[in-house]
């Protein structure tokens, strides 16, 4: 208890107002609806879920790109929602952000030098020689050599893999303690993906930063993360170490998810997969009780469709939010 976790998220809710005519209330999107978890220093945490489950919103809320409506995010024991402007600015320097679309993440009208210098300028590195050295060092570490050649290039002149390297470089140029990577490889070609993930892993290990890896692809998590959180309809329904989660999923949704992902094997073509029917619920009006109950074959009537299950830890280090483990 003496050592605070790097990041501690507690019962976080991020909702969006829908407005009609720009003025009148027309509903709320409950993208993140009561989420708690910790990230230790130097730990790599994966958040897994389907598109629209709120995982990107969660990542952005952690980065203070969205304001939560309730709950708390503590960074090194301090509640960031109470941060002053200066404190928030220094928090931004301590967090790095890697996005899904590397081309979109780079301003098309800036060259690589400008792109990498921007965070330094904003955070008060006034000497241009110092900025230059930092930029060049970063490029060397990312294997983008020779720097002189890369520096004057515009994003569209680089390949997808190179672009994503620049994005990674920008995220760590301020030497942050936490990096949030939101689907960092899903838009890259299969052959480049592994390369980028390995680079990210290397960066995380050498810098000892905490890493939140947001993805829909469980199979990449396996080689990459310490802890895995599974998100469904705005809530974290299961969290466990990766190997444990894959070999022993507890929540019916996690089971279905793991079941739905094939490994390349000719046998697959001869069988049907057991998959829950239906689609993920709308975040504006999620079903009452457990969010997964309408698609769940283990649904207990009168319970799952009424009350939200509590967080349980049936196996040490393996939490699940499901009435089956009550």
């Amino acid at each position, binding site marked *: 208890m003496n050592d605070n976790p790097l990041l501690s998220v507690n019962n976080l809710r991020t909702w969006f107002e829908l407005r009609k005519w720009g003025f009148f209330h027309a509903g709320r999107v409950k993208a993140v609806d009561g989420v708690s978890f910790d990230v230790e220093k130097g730990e790599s945490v994966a958040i897994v879920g*389907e*598109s*629209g489950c709120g995982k990107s919103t969660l990542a952005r809320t952690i980065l203070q790109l969205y304001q939560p409506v309730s709950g708390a995010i503590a960074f090194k024991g301090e509640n960031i929602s109470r941060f002053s402007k200066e404190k928030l600015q220094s928090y931004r320097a301590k967090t790095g952000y890697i996005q899904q679309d590397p081309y979109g993440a780079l301003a098309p009208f800036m060259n690589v030098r400008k792109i990498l210098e921007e965070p330094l300028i904003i955070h008060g590195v006034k000497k241009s020689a110092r900025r230059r050295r930092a930029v060049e060092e970063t490029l060397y570490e990312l294997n983008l050599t020779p720097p002189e050649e890369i520096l004057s290039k515009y994003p569209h002149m680089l*390949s997808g*893999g190179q672009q994503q390297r620049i994005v990674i470089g920008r995220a760590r140029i301020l030497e942050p303690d936490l990096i949030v990577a939101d689907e960092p490889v899903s838009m890259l*070609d*299969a*052959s*480049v*993906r*592994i*390369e980028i993930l*390995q680079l990210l892993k290397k960066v995380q290990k050498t810098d000892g930063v905490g890493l939140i890896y947001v993805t*829909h*692809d*469980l*199979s*990449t998590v*396996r*080689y990459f993360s310490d802890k895995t959180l599974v998100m469904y309809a705005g809530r974290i329904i299961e969290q466990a170490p990766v190997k444990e989660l*894959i*070999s022993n999923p507890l929540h019916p949704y996690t*089971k*279905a*998810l*793991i*079941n*739905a*992902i*094939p*490994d*390349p*094997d*000719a046998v*697959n*073509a*001869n*069988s*049907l*997969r*057991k*998959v*829950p*029917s239906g*689609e*993920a619920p709308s975040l504006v009006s999620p079903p009452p009780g457990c969010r997964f109950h309408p698609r769940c074959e283990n649904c207990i009537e009168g319970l799952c469709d009424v009350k939200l299950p509590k967080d349980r830890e049936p196996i040490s280090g393996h939490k699940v939010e499901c009435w089956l483990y009550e």
Partner: protein
Amino acid sequence: MNKVNIIMKNNPGKNTKVSSALRTHGLNLNFQTQKGIIRAVENVDFELKDGHTTVILGESGCGKSSLARALLRLLPNNTANYDGEVWLGGRNIMEFSDSQFRTQVRWIKISLVPQAAMNSFNPVTKIAKQIAEPLLVHGKVRSKKEAMRKVSEVFDLVGVPQDFIGRYPFEFSGGMQQRAAIAMALVADPDVIIMDEPTSALDLLTQANIMNTLKKIKWETGVTYMLITHDVSTSSELADDIAVMYAAWIVERAEAKDFFDNPLHPYSKMLMDSVPRLHADKTPRSIPGTPPPLYEMQGGCRFAARCPERHNDCDREPPVFEPQPGRKVKCWLYKRN
């Protein structure tokens, strides 16, 4: 531990002799652009076996989508060269005139499930009407009523609820639109259905659901699929045969089982190695380098620059070798003798 619910189903015609639904020989498709001529499809030979599913596997930009367009003669304005042979039902449909092609091939012989279903429906027309359209155009039904009956049949087949018949595209969710696109491809009972990344934009569970649906349809109707994808794992859900495409060439053709167990072409091997696996403990490895852009290709093997097994022969374009019966590889490593 494998939790897959196995419903064994004999692959149709696995051991009997299969006729081919569609066969190409020396198919080419080039585009003229400012950067030069883009060779999207070059000298492609392949075969879709009747009732089988053939997967065209390749990374983005390898020409696999152009191959689909070449088969349906959906050519952009800047097409520079389009030739070769496409045999369908005993006739070379490349010799058809445009109007012949339209009335005799499109949709009644070959239909298409496009990559982005949400953009493939006219937003101002009801989806059911758009599905019924080819039936009416090709005279497959006598009345609109009959056409709508057929639409409601295919809706059942792909799992779109009946009350969606009166709806516009924007009232469908992404998964439903994809199902509707499959329904549209099925509606005129075509010989071949080309599916261009039919599930890549969808959620995992929806993806798996649609794969199940596709499998069921295949088993029930014996339709021939040509599945175009970059996703090796998903492709294994449907594949009977595999053709690997790299830089406008088909570099390897094999039956799925042989291919997944033992890929032959160096690119195929590396591609298989780059796939992260969920259920097996095997660290994936990436393929160094990038594929050559399709507009500045040199002579010789196009994979040579990235190939760990490259040797002197690779300066020349490799012919297609057949190291084992039924397996074709475009690589000098399999030169006989």
